[in-house]
């Protein structure tokens, strides 16, 4: 139990996917203009991350390792993630049109979100058990949402600020991300894995 809590906190805060591993930077810069948007994207990503962690863990251990096919790892993982996103999209559209309207536009973007593939690769690399993998997925998703929402909050405030023209857009976002990364380092001593 302590181990699982540690994995969760590490993935969500101290080793935040966006701010220490640079995973999922594209949506972090692209979809962080409004807080509602950021929350929607974050929830959709967390959902897919958790599912992806479960499915790829099963595939890796019961198919790839069992039959000695480690070289198919990347190809199979990315296909699993892409199909998963499609299935989730269709499922949500069928079951809850309201949820689909809220999350739908973000779902296709998630396939090329490096955070998902990164999550599955880290999970395999660190030899997590199934339960640890799932907790890792949820934690990483929460961390991603947290970073996205904080960033959106700051950017909403920035709108009325006088930013030098060349830095507007990506430039200032990256610099703020740098400062956020520095402040998240403060959590570093919280746990030692």
């Amino acid at each position, binding site marked *: 139990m302590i181990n699982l809590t540690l994995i969760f906190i590490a993935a969500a805060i101290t*080793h935040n996917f966006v701010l220490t591993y640079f995973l999922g930077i594209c949506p972090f810069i692209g979809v962080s203009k409004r807080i509602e948007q950021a929350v929607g994207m974050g929830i959709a990503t967390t959902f897919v991350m958790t599912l992806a962690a479960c499915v790829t863990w099963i595939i890796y251990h019961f198919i790839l390792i069992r039959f000695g096919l480690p*070289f*198919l790892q990347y*190809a199979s993982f990315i296909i699993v993630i892409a199909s998963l996103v499609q299935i989730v999209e269709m499922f949500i559209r069928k079951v809850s049109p309201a949820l689909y309207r809220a999350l739908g536009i973000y779902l296709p973007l998630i396939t090329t979100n490096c955070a998902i593939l990164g999550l599955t690769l880290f999970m395999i690399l*660190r030899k997590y058990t199934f339960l640890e993998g799932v907790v890792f997925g949820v934690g990483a998703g929460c961390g991603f949402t947290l970073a996205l929402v904080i960033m959106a909050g700051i950017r909403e405030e920035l709108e009325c600020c006088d930013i030098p023209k060349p830095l507007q857009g990506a430039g200032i976002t990256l610099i703020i991300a740098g400062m956020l990364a520095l402040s998240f380092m403060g959590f570093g001593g919280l746990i*030692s*894995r």
Partner: protein
Amino acid sequence: MRKTIQMISVLTIIGLVSGTVLVFTYKYANPLILDNQKNEIKEAIFKIFPKADTYEKDIIEDSVIFRAKEGGKLLGYAFLAEGNGYQGAIKMMAGIEPNLETLVGIEILESQETPGLGQEITEEEFKAQFKGLMTSPKITYVKNKPPERPNEIRAVTGATVSSSAVVSILNEKIKKLKNALQKLR
């Protein structure tokens, strides 16, 4: 219907071709990768025991040890130790004298610590401290001052977590090894 057949056949062919390409790549690369891993271990052992000319691999109670020898004489045991550091796994090779009381040295094989801070554990300055260190009582570390006792090392400034990780990984493995080897005698 024609569309469906076309879709399925294109995907199948792509899958088959990519699978074949990957099989050949794997066949070519895998022996080289295994060689690289073996070489890494070999280099680390000879770096810790510069006088050794051969080593033997042995497995004692699910831990791998290497007996480093010079012309048949046992110089000491080298062993792999692994554990979690600040950012990810730290994997190292350590050497210990046959009496199991004195460390010969350590080499860091893998680490993903913070560059510029925790990654300093891979620097000679940090690793050299372990040469001739006593293993009992347990190895400990001190901060911001030179070590005084024969079983102490000085932690890297600003990277206590990484330094203490190295120390605790070592302590745990040494304890395990002592138990295992003593049973053997």
